[in-house]
């Protein structure tokens, strides 16, 4: 039976990580690598089950997810509105664009001390880090998305009497939606990176805390469990957002 190109790619996509895991396992068992630094995948899986059973894993995971969710909403919603306004109104763009250009390149992880100073060691600083990570890609992509809308569509809105809010809702938002979705995907990825970093300092819970704490206790397999969880989260978010996009933007012709 002939496999379609898409199915073939899917099969390879499953096979290559599996091959890597097998190689890893074999290397540890054959004594090629030091299990204190690189515990075998089977050991990591055992630790994973243990942490899941004691509830430690879920406690940390839910703490991280909750921070991600709040940060995502607090950073994403204003970015969306401001990005739409920047795309639609020249003066808004003229005012905000230089500020964005100046602050965007500052590494978010470098702002962490400042964030801790302002928001303290509690939840607020973790949420602020995620919000910062989500804010920029969503803002920049939303603005670019609105600017990319064909002028004729804005003329149509004007000609058929669309007011400011109607133009937002029926033209700017849906027209920019494909690029907004791309911005959200980038933002979620950055949010994951930043939440792990933020939780390593002054946190008492979260996947980042779990990794940092494991390092301090030299519990290397727990550390790997944390890394695997972050990888799985990244994969799951990408998949979920792809599905959401398919459902939200049925008008995008898919290649």
């Amino acid at each position: 039976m002939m496999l379609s190109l898409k199915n073939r790619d899917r099969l390879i996509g499953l096979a290559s990580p599996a091959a890597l895991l097998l190689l890893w396992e074999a290397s540890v068992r054959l004594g090629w690598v030091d299990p204190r630094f690189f515990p075998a995948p089977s050991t990591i899986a055992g630790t994973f089950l243990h942490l899941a059973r004691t509830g430690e894993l879920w406690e940390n995971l839910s703490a991280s997810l909750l921070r991600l969710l709040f940060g995502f909403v607090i950073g994403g919603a204003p970015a969306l509105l401001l990005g739409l306004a920047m795309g639609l109104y020249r003066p808004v763009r003229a005012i905000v664009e230089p500020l964005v250009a100046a602050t965007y390149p500052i590494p978010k992880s470098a702002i962490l001390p400042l964030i801790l100073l302002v928001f303290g060691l509690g939840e607020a600083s973790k949420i602020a880090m995620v919000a910062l990570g989500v804010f920029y890609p969503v803002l920049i992509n939303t603005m670019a998305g609105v600017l990319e809308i064909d002028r004729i569509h804005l003329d149509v809105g004007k000609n058929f009497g669309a007011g400011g809010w109607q133009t937002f809702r029926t033209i700017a938002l849906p027209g920019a939606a494909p690029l907004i979705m791309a911005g959200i995907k980038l933002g979620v990825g950055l949010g994951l990176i930043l939440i792990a970093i933020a939780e390593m300092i002054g946190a008492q819970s979260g996947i980042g805390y779990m990794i940092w704490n494991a390092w301090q206790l030299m519990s290397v397999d727990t550390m790997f469990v944390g890394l695997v969880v972050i990888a799985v989260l990244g994969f799951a978010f990408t998949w979920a957002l792809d599905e959401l996009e398919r459902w939200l933007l049925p008008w995008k012709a898919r290649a």
Partner: protein
Amino acid sequence: MRVAALPDIAVSAPPKIEIGGLYKSFPTRSGTFTALDGISLDIARGSFCTIVGPSGCGKTTLLRILAGLETATAGRAAIAADDPAKPVNAMVFQGDSIFPWMTVWNNAAYGLHMRHAPRAQVKEVVTHYLDRTGLLPFADRYPHQLSGGMKQRVSIARAFATDPEVLLMDEPFSALDEQNRTLLQDELLRIWDEDKKTVVFITHSVDEAVTLGDRIVVMTAHPGRIKTIVEVPFARPRDVLELRRDPAYGALVFRIWGELRDEVARARRQEAEGRA
């Protein structure tokens, strides 16, 4: 030859559209560009006015001023509103103007939605015009699933659905192939015959101007002025193919071409100079 008597009322009634001394210029790097230079034109209520001219003669600018999308530098362009509840105009744009993110149905209903029309009215009106344009079976499709001709039909349905005081059409069929264009001209005439709205129709095709119009306004090359206005004597309702067999049709097309030839040549020269 079929010749319709011009109704007296068109002469005595106040015009639906009054354009007086209309002047439009744009600032450019090399000085001021005059797009329209003193356009004066009355368009009778319920008449179909076609405007032909060489490319760059300002005919689209004229239409955009009527649509309220641009403002005139001087002069006036007024559309008499008979019913304050109706929108003053609706435009059928050149090229791809329907929203790719809306279904055919929501595109056709756009003007009505913007005016917060009651649901029952939207349903009735949109069903009617999608039916008249043959799009009812495609109501749930998205534009990327439609052909160019179908997209322009959606655009026409969208404009008619708002029941505007006047319809403005900016070369709506210019991107279509010959067969589709003829079909859509025929459909447009049939829909227009239902309630005979005042129409201003821009085209660069002399054939199209003669086929559709009651009067043809011939414009000069840049700067845009009115060269001449020609009455079209053919009776309505018109059948596009039948009309083209009529020797008088050919004679009229030939006459308009005579008016237009010098202007097209002049526009060519201007374009060549502009590039040099």
